[in-house]
């Protein structure tokens, strides 16, 4: 295949010689590079190296975590789609399905809090609406550094504005979340966004591309040089220098996303779509590789057709760009005109950028030459999987409670009420539109949020929970507790807990003690999910949350979803009347 490459006329990015430095800049280890060469049967060119680097990044490949994720319980009669798709899907009766997922946008939010958080919200909503669901609720789990740290204020303000700026504009209520402050997040904040959508069980859309010759279609916004290397950035430890590097930040455009949502819903009402996937991290690359790989086909792309916002973009840049508000679809052949009409009416770009082949390879053309030709299997399933060494977390020392008796209870209570951990979050959640769509039965301020299934008496209960301090002290118990807390919060509204998503935020997995936290938290989570019949249907892993060698506390955020059949039976958390009994349950 290599011989087909057009002879080189002018300096082309692919003419650059691949040196060990270039390999390292792409975040690839020397042995990983050797594997790439073996898979290719030759030296990759720059474009191919770029594609491998993003597909094999921790963010896309889950290379350190896959082994452990496989152990989580993922099935149950309520599960329609477990992990592996854009989002998980559960059955909520009467032909209705809840579609949900949680995802991190930690590093981008540290660099540019407003846009980082905004694009995090935009990305997770696309994951949900690509499945055919209409997003009905957003949640977020935020972790910031010490309130007195000089950066914290700026980061909190930016992140909260960004979440609101995106969610409020698109018109999906933000119904809850959690916020903690701890110095371990000083240099590494966590911004985890969750989205829940509703679909009909017979109208779920998947990413697997089938049908040799079927057109591959690009829709949404134009491609710019946004966030190139974002995916690799999300997988590399931070140091002070990378803040200076200032990668081109992705800017969110919620207005366009709203149009994209409506246009997709309109096209989804027909049967023209074979497969659809959002262009998230590693944009065009990961979406085309994943779609083709899942369907067991090949794909050929013509980058000259890709709508671009900037001039002279190289193929490398187009493949790696993380411009927002874009989707890739495979349509039934011949259905392009009707799809195009819909997207144009909504003022969005639409372009046929390729087609499916039977080669099992991804072939990319640009400006009259073939710039990449690579086997799909090693890009996706064939990515490295590591069984990283780990050390168990030593038992935390007992807290010395001997002086507790000297404390005046009232003073202690006042201190507690005033501490940043417990203080009211109203100032945050009032900046989010929690009521739009007219189905929010219980918004922020309670245990779990309650969102009515539009037009029915049913409601979804949603909660995000984790207590990183517990996970640090005893990861197994902390993992269990996070799941149990989500379960309790959902139960407390009167709903039956059904399934969870998660966002596993940890430090550098190449350090055995961090890996130990990861392994043990997952063990606890898995055990709790098993015991409670509360399976995991989607999730996300964010590793390397470290700055200058200081890792964050293990923070496996859980997003739980439950169902209440009759919303008349829902209960709030207020003591609503005098002269009522108060019971304490449990032990």
């Amino acid at each position, binding site marked *: 295949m290599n011989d087909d490459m057009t002879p080189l006329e002018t300096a082309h990015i692919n003419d650059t010689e691949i040196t060990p430095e270039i390999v390292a800049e792409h975040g690839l280890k020397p042995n990983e590079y050797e594997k790439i060469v073996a898979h290719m049967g030759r030296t990759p060119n720059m474009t191919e190296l770029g594609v491998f680097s993003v597909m094999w990044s921790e963010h896309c490949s889950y290379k350190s975590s896959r082994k452990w994720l496989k152990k989580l319980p993922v099935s149950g009669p309520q599960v329609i789609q477990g992990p592996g798709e854009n989002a998980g899907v559960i059955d909520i009766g009467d032909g209705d399905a809840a579609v949900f997922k949680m995802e991190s946008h930690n590093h981008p939010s540290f660099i540019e809090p407003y846009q980082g958080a905004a694009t995090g919200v935009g990305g997770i909503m696309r994951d949900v609406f690509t499945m055919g669901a209409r997003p009905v609720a957003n949640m977020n789990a935020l972790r910031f550094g010490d309130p007195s740290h000089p950066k914290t204020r700026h980061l909190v303000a930016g992140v909260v504005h960004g979440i609101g700026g995106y969610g409020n504009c*698109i018109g999906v209520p933000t119904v809850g979340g959690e916020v903690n402050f701890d110095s371990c997040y000083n240099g590494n904040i966590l911004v985890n966004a969750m989205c829940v959508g509703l679909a009909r069980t017979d109208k779920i859309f998947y990413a697997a591309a089938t049908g040799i010759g079927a057109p591959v279609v690009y829709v949404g916004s134009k491609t710019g040089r946004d966030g190139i290397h974002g995916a690799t950035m999300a997988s590399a430890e931070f140091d002070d220098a990378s803040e200076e590097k200032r990668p081109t930040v992705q800017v969110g*455009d919620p207005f366009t996303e709203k149009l994209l949502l409506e246009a997709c819903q309109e096209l989804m009402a027909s049967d023209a779509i074979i497969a659809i996937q959002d262009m998230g991290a590693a944009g065009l690359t990961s979406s085309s590789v994943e779609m083709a790989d899942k369907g067991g086909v090949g794909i050929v792309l013509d980058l000259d057709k890709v709508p671009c916002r900037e001039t002279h973009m190289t193929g490398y840049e187009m493949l790696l760009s993380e411009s927002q508000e874009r989707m890739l679809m495979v349509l039934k052949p011949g259905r392009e005109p009707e799809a195009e009409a819909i997207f144009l009416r909504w003022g969005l770009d639409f372009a046929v950028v390729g087609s499916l082949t039977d080669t099992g390879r991804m072939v990319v053309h640009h400006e009259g030459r073939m710039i990449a030709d690579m086997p799909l299997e090693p890009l996706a399933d064939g990515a490295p999987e590591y069984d990283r060494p780990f050390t168990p977390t030593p038992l935390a020392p007992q807290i010395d409670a001997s002086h507790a008796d000297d404390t005046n209870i009232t003073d202690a209570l006042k201190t507690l009420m005033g501490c940043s951990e417990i203080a009211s979050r109203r100032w945050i959640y*009032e900046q*989010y539109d*929690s009521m739009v769509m007219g189905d929010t039965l219980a918004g922020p301020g309670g245990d779990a949020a309650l969102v009515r299934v539009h037009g029915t008496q049913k409601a979804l209960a949603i909660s995000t929970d984790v207590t990183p301090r517990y996970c640090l002290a005893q990861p197994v118990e902390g993992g269990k507790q996070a799941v149990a807390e989500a379960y309790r919060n959902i139960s407390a509204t009167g709903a039956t807990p059904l399934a969870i998503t998660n966002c596993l935020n940890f430090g550098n997995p190449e350090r055995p003690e961090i890996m130990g936290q990861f392994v043990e938290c997952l063990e606890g989570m898995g055990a709790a999910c098993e015991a409670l019949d509360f399976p995991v249907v989607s999730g996300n892993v964010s590793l390397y949350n470290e700055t200058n060698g200081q890792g964050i506390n293990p923070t496996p955020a859980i997003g739980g979803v439950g169902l209440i059949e009759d919303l008349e039976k829902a209960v709030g958390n207020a003591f609503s009347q005098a002269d009522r009994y108060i019971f304490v349950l449990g032990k």
Partner: protein
Amino acid sequence: MQASVIVFPGSNCDRDVAICLEAATGKKPNMVWHGDSDLPDSDVIVLPGGFSYGDYLRCGSMAANSPIMKEVVLKAQKGAAVLGICNGFQVLTECGLLPGVLMRNAALNFVCRNTRLIVDNNTTPFTGLYQQGEEVIIPVAHNEGNYFADDETLNELSGEGRIVLSYAPDDNPNGACRNIAGICDSSGLVLGMMPHPERRAEAALGGEDGKRMFTGLVEALS
């Protein structure tokens, strides 16, 4: 009674208000796309909340210039009732049907919460079912709801009873001049308001204070 809801790209309370209108009128409202130049005959036209055109440039500015607004202005001149809620209020000031302008909230934050409102004028077709001076609870959700106009205009509005709704003095969420939450034109048929009556029109959603606006409208216009 026939209602129409104008849908701009980026409107996001169009469905919510349509549900309230249908409940009050017993008929589905027409949903009219902003790009249309044809507006079916309607007794009331609603400009819904949301972020038309992403709220870019100035809230409501681009929507005010869309083709359908020419029709809305014509119909208003011919006596149709027009209700602008939130972003719809911003559109009404931008297109000149109502005076003044909605600026960025004084605290520079988006604010979504219940507010206590005082009905200052119950003689408009929108407020007939409220008592004069009654305090009601209706939520707001906006980033630019800080009503501003020069003193002359404000005096005129006060003097003519055109301040229809105001925030309770200790509950002004955005810094609006004279606690203004909603104003009407001199005919009383065009009302712009920042709070969202459609979000409080059902007991399950916390209360029904907003519902009377829609049922009252039906009573007044039929």
